[in-house]
């Protein structure tokens, strides 16, 4: 069984709290019956309403925070049917969860600088990543760049601001931090030597941002990793509905597609065509 699903279990969780976050997102706290094993930041869960109704297939979400052994927090932007149904639940309701899934980010060792690039709810995998880095004593070498259309879409930014690491925000409308997008901010910071160019650059966010970031990272020769989201049917590797084209010369190149759910969702930029 692929390592990415070997420890995954499916169970019903209890919705503990649902807190509005920004104009169109929620923090969803779930209490699981069985504590999931340890998992990497960027690992994800498949969620759906627990007692029927709602979508036919579940939706993938990175685990945002592990509040304790059995309680997981998710940051969910309401975008379509699946997320609307989830965010209409109330505390006490059951939520179907399969977790942990996917590879997640390999946390860079303490001596290696990391730059995290998050667009909107693309911040989801990075709270736990930052926590791990800080626990390893690498806070000063962990840079968090957080961008969105406007300040109110820098979801739950206090949770990141409370961590002791360098943080920069960027908004398209200039309502918080740098006035511009994340790639412009990256360019600016690199040119002013505010970021180490030899760092591991990890990005997650809307597809437009990731494409712009990928182009930028390739042009600059940055070491980059992307956490991707595609349509997914199952999340555990059986349906082949989440293909991502592989780079023929890369480690996944023996087959033209990788499965985002079990080969990812985190990919080295050099291993995929994106």
């Amino acid at each position, binding site marked *: 069984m*692929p390592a990415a699903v070997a420890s*995954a279990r499916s169970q019903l969780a209890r919705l503990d709290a649902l807190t509005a976050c920004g104009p169109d997102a929620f923090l969803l706290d779930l209490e699981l019956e069985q504590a999931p094993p340890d998992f990497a930041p960027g690992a994800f869960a*498949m969620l759906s309403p627990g007692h029927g109704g709602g979508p036919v297939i*579940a939706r993938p979400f990175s685990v945002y925070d592990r509040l304790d052994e059995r309680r997981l927090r998710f940051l969910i932007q309401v975008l379509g049917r699946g997320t609307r149904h989830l965010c209409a639940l109330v505390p006490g309701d059951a939520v179907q969860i399969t977790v942990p899934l996917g590879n997640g980010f390999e946390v860079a060792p303490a001596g290696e600088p990391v730059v995290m690039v998050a667009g909107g709810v693309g911040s989801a995998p990075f709270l736990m990543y930052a926590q791990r880095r800080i626990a390893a004593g690498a806070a000063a070498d962990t840079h968090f760049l957080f961008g969105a259309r406007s300040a109110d879409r820098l979801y739950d930014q206090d949770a990141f601001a409370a961590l002791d690491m360098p943080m920069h925000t960027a908004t398209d409308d200039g309502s918080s931090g740098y006035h511009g997008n994340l790639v412009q901010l990256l360019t600016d910071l690199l040119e002013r030597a505010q970021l180490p160019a030899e760092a591991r650059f990890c990005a997650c966010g809307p597809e437009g941002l990731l494409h712009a970031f990928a182009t930028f990272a390739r042009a600059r020769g940055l070491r980059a990793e992307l956490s991707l989201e595609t349509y997914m*049917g199952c999340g555990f*590797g059986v*349906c*082949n509905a989440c293909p991502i084209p592989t780079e023929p010369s890369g480690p996944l190149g023996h087959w033209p597609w990788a499965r985002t759910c079990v080969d990812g969702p985190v990919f080295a930029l050099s291993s995929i065509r994106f």
Partner: protein
Amino acid sequence: MLETRLGELHLASPLLTASGTFGHDPAALAFLHPGDLGALVLKTVTPEPRHGNAPPRMVEFEGGVMNSIGLENKGLAYWREQVAPKLASVGVPVVANAGGHCAADYRLMVEAFSDMPGVAAIELNLSCPNVVGGTQFSSDAVALAEVVSLCRAATSKALWVKLSPNVPAIAPLAQAAEQAGADALTVCNTLAGLLIDWRTRKPRLGNGCGGMSGPAVRPLATRLVWESSQAVKIPVIASGGAESADDVLDFLVAGASAVQVGTACFRRPDVISLIAADLRRILAEEGLRLEQMVGTLRWPETVSC
């Protein structure tokens, strides 16, 4: 309590996976309790590797999903080397599923599966709506009989034929498969459909059309199970939208001897174990045995269909 006979095969349960919904190999079995699954039906294998269709490959609608995976698989040589050796020790009968472009392809696949000790039965995917020529055998009784006869001659293992719902009448096709030597029929594959995004004026699936599955197709599958089971003596295996013990029992009453669970596995990988537990509870509460249920539909005398 759930023991099921399917021709010569003795299964621990009437619940099977549906091809394409539980993987290319036995890995996902870890989600299920032993004894709950009757047989593991794996994803279609073709003689040569197939890269599959352009994404998006699966989209949802109210009541179901549409897929157009395009039979992505690494081909027979890979499967023989990497998958087949794992099958004998998985603790549940494995059903290999064969795909191809022409009758000779199917024969080749059946011969190969026939030589693999871990394969208990072979299902012919003669009805995939997502590949060119995927349904040529499923809509023409003569062509269907030819390919099934060829495959029958190539194996003594149980041979199942998976039929298409995209036909005006299923009985002649079911009979053609039976007469050509099929041991069981799987009824049915996905229903050809099209989902559109009006804003972009494009199909929502990368390959255009796709196959419908999930709860929305269950009434159609139930009718086809009933019609085909009336037309043949070999067992019929239902496939089409089952997601609960009640759905399974409905299919048995309609004439199915076993039921494949497909799309429901996507939402909940252990759903077959949940259904098995519910089935045991219902049978105990009602004092029923599974085989008493099969083909017991009481058709109202005043109604014709």
